[in-house]
């Protein structure tokens, strides 16, 4: 074949289930194509999450998605599951409430770098400290995408944004290390150029009974790319790919050698008591039974299922 015109498919095939991408079954098809710009990493991360979910054998019906405000936070709106689109930066705070009142739900938080590290930074470190069983997927595109390319707390030194026309002078947050130091039990960082590793980490994060934080460095060709001379999605993804370095290889290197590098790998994988389990234990210790769940429907301890 030499041209797209010669590439023809019969009408019958186009309408079959097999002609659909595998993860479209979890999405609201009537809402597609989604609003993300061409080549935005958010779409890839949707696929990555579903592949990880299938590998972890998690029931899709038992998943509740929570998000804040931002391009990345619009993901739950395209998924056929219960979701909560909350205020900017408060996704983890809402998710904590949801998880405490419904400990059996698998609560997944989709959040951006601005959403979780700047306005929601406080909620992030405290959820990690308490080790509550949430799976937080942080889409780090190094910029505020939705509002027009302002510098975010993870923008690399020297990068250009609409609030830093001469280049960013501040040192960025290393989110994965920050969350690991705050006490999360599973922390990993990958990029959209290493989707298979990200799938594995999402699988581990969903299975982990504790706070799981998966940071995925992603591309925003529209704002980060355009302002930093990488307008094409392919340029951005190749730049990301070329700047990654595995955590074990990065161990002996000094700050100068690690300049402009993205260290990827697992930053924490340990066990520690979980927040909702702690609450149930406390309740059992003092009242002899578990706490009232869904207290909007139940008013006394006697009616609670054992």
């Amino acid at each position, binding site marked *: *074949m030499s041209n797209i015109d010669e590439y023809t498919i019969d009408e019958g095939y186009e309408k079959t289930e097999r002609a659909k*991408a595998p993860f479209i079954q979890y999405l609201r098809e009537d809402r597609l194509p989604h609003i993300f710009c061409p080549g935005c990493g958010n*779409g890839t991360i949707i*696929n990555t999450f579903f592949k990880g979910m299938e590998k972890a054998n998690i029931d899709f019906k038992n998943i509740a998605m929570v998000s804040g405000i931002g391009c990345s936070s619009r993901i739950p709106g395209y998924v056929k599951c219960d979701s909560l689109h909350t205020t900017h930066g408060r996704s983890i705070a809402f998710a904590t409430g949801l998880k405490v009142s419904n400990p059996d739900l698998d609560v997944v938080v989709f959040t951006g770098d601005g959403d979780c590290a700047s306005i929601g930074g406080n909620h992030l470190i405290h959820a990690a400290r308490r080790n509550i069983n949430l799976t937080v997927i942080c889409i780090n595109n190094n910029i505020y995408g939705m509002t027009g390319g302002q510098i975010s707390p993870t923008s690399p030194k020297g990068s250009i944004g609409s609030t830093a026309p001469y280049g960013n002078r501040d040192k960025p947050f290393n989110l994965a290390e920050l969350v690991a130091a705050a006490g999360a039990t599973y922390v990993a960082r990958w990029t959209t150029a290493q*989707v298979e590793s990200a799938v594995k980490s999402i699988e581990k994060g969903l299975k982990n009974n504790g706070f799981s934080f998966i940071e995925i460095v992603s591309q925003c060709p529209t704002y980060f790319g355009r302002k930093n001379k990488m307008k094409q999605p392919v340029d951005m993804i190749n730049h990301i790919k070329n700047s990654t370095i595995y955590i074990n290889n990065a161990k002996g290197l000094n700050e100068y050698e690690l300049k402009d590098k993205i260290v990827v790998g697992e930053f924490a994988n340990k066990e520690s008591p979980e927040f909702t389990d702690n609450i149930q234990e406390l309740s059992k210790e003092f009242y002899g039974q578990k706490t009232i769940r869904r207290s909007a429907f139940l008013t006394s301890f006697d009616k609670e299922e054992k």
Partner: protein
Amino acid sequence: MIYINQDLCKGCLLCVNTCHKHVYAVSDKPNKKEVLLPYPANEKNCSNCKECELVCPDQAISVDIERNWWMSKDNTYAFNPNFAKKRV
């Protein structure tokens, strides 16, 4: 069969960049929205790894191919199946 849904594809060309078998080529004719879309020009090279399906941000690609990279055309293994066994 590799199928790209032209209503969903936005022409970011990440699939062209991802495919290690160079299956995709870029069309030289723009579509109605003036975007150059990719198409599977060398489908017979496809190893069925499904990486493009996973990477496509717009859920436009479906790879539906019978063959696997570990089976050759005459239905024998494309690698030595005893490679991990200890030699005696």
